[in-house]
């Protein structure tokens, strides 16, 4: 197992594509073992591809692409602007609220961050926000997408850790909304200190909000439908994914009249690349997870950790801190795929609810994508807006600090995360 870890680390440092770094490291375990034939490794790839929960991944990637061409995104931007651009900090709030609403249909923080950097970023800078602060608000704000259902990260966590994806989805709702609030407070605090004004001068009237809501109703309705269908067992999360695709198509065609056969097909083709990239990582990671189970790594890890502390809360905070550090140097999907099979048995043995842990883990590892040295969302946004990393880092500190405070709060008070899934689904 040490060989696997060493091979993996060396390959990563040398810029091996993530999928192949995972695959080759996993294969090295089989090559080094006398009684494990390599056909078993290939079998692991085939069996992962036959898992129904994983089908949700391509669906939500495709739904995210379709949102942009169907006009759902445009309507959501307009509505967010109406709602919050009057608060000090202006468009930075719009970006954060938009992440929360986009998160209700799309499931990827990086996709959300790069979309916003392209669509909203330039007008944010024009409105007087600094480049660094604009990039930070967009990148860190995208973290909300990772917890608000549907979240691709949570699908993978549920798949690898054998935890109900439906429950995880519903559990992500309250933390996602709290994060929206906390980030808006942080933006407000920064804006007030610097004397950054609002974007529009007056508060929208209740009538204007009602009108805006009506205008954006199809886009806003989707997350509600998602929760309802999953809660009442009408759809499994994967079926809800297919529903999301059909929904985006229907809204784009019948309500907003934006779709042509050609741009739908182009969205399909674009999604194919993203799906191929992410699915290859997932399938190859299944080779490694076999090695992890074979070596009984979770058991060994639990025994080692119990000697450090026996208090579950302290343990939870320690594991989260560890995940935060790993998240800084590793891509989030890969961490979830490799560490979930180890950590879920560990936390369950400690009496921590795996649904509670999943939400916190997802926030911590995704946050790593917003920090250097390895921050996919950060590089995406800074690349598009041409923002130097140092300026981004300074400006993102208050936002990251706010998120960390929220994580500690959620870790100490599990019922905030769990009351909704436990109350709705028993």
């Amino acid at each position, binding site marked *: 197992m040490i060989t696997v870890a060493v091979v993996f680390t060396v390959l990563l440092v040398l810029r091996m594509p*993530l999928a192949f770094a995972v695959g080759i490291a996993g294969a090295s375990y089989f090559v080094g073992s006398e009684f494990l034939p390599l056909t078993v*490794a290939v079998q692991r790839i085939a069996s992962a591809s036959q898992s129904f929960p994983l089908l949700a991944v391509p669906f939500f990637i495709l739904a995210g692409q379709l949102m942009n061409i169907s006009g759902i995104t445009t309507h959501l931007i307009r509505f967010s602007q109406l709602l919050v651009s009057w608060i000090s900090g202006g468009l930075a709030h719009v970006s954060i609220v938009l992440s929360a609403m986009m998160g209700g249909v799309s499931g990827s923080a990086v996709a959300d961050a790069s979309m916003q950097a392209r669509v909203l970023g330039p007008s944010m800078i024009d409105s007087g926000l600094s480049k660094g602060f604009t990039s930070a608000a967009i990148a860190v704000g995208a973290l909300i997408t990772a917890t608000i259902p549907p979240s691709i990260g949570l699908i993978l966590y549920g798949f690898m850790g054998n935890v109900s994806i439906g429950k995880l989805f519903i559990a992500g709702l309250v933390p996602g909304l709290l994060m929206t609030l906390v980030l808006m407070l942080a933006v407000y605090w920064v804006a007030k200190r610097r004397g950054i004004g609002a974007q529009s001068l007056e508060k929208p009237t209740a009538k204007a909000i009602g009108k805006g809501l009506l205008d954006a109703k199809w886009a806003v309705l989707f997350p509600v439908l998602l929760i309802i269908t999953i809660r009442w067992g009408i759809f499994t999360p994967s079926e809800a994914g297919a529903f999301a695709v059909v929904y985006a198509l229907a809204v784009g065609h019948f309500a907003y009249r934006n779709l042509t056969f050609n741009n739908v097909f182009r969205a399909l083709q674009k999604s*194919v690349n*993203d799906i191929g990239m992410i699915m290859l990582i997932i399938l190859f990671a299944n080779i490694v997870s076999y090695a992890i189970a074979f070596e009984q790594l979770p058991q060994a890890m639990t025994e080692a950790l119990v000697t450090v502390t026996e208090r579950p809360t302290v343990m939870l905070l320690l594991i989260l801190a560890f995940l935060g550090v790993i998240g800084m140097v590793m891509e989030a999907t890969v961490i979830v795929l490799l560490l979930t099979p180890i950590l879920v048995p560990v936390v369950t043995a400690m009496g921590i609810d795996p649904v509670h842990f999943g939400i916190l883990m997802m926030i911590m590892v995704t946050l790593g994508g917003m920090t250097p040295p390895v921050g996919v969302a950060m590089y995406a946004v800074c690349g598009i807006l041409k923002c130097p990393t140092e300026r981004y880092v300074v400006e993102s500190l208050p936002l990251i600090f706010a998120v960390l405070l929220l994580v500690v709060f959620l870790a100490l008070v599990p019922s905030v995360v769990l009351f909704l899934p436990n109350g709705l689904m028993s």
Partner: protein
Amino acid sequence: MALIKFWLKLERTVVATLLGLIVICVFMAAVMRTVGLPIIWSVDIAQLLFVWVCMLGGNQAMHSGDHVGIDYFVKRFSRKVQLGIDAAMYALILFFLAALIVYGIKLTLLNPERELGAVRLPYSLVTAAIPLGGALMFCTAAAQFVYIIRVLLGQVDADYSLSFMQKFVADSDPVAPAQAKL
């Protein structure tokens, strides 16, 4: 060259169509079950197509240079060193894909009687996607590997606008860097 371009376009169209079919299969199964007329084969077909979308999509992503790695460390080296490291990585990838093809074929032939869920189709239709997708990726990786080697040997002038060459372009260089995904 024209043939390769045609093949790529064909593959792209096929995968996009398969992806659309998967959506239809799963959505239809869910709707029909809700109205009380379940179709059992629909989801099985979706699962079967899914493995093909994954493997063929993996090849498409490789063509476009979308399989990202962590470039934090390597970016510090000169372009020549980077090309050298990448050639070594490509060699490893080719080795890995060759193993995938060989053992994938073995696995496909191992158990010909096994059937796929409720549809009376052989399970080997699923496993066959792995060696076949692996072979396509092998071709793609081999072509990119040869190109990089030829650049290193000075036989061709590097064209950094090629999608898989864009990782060698630093942010400060005039050519726009590949946009990060994932």
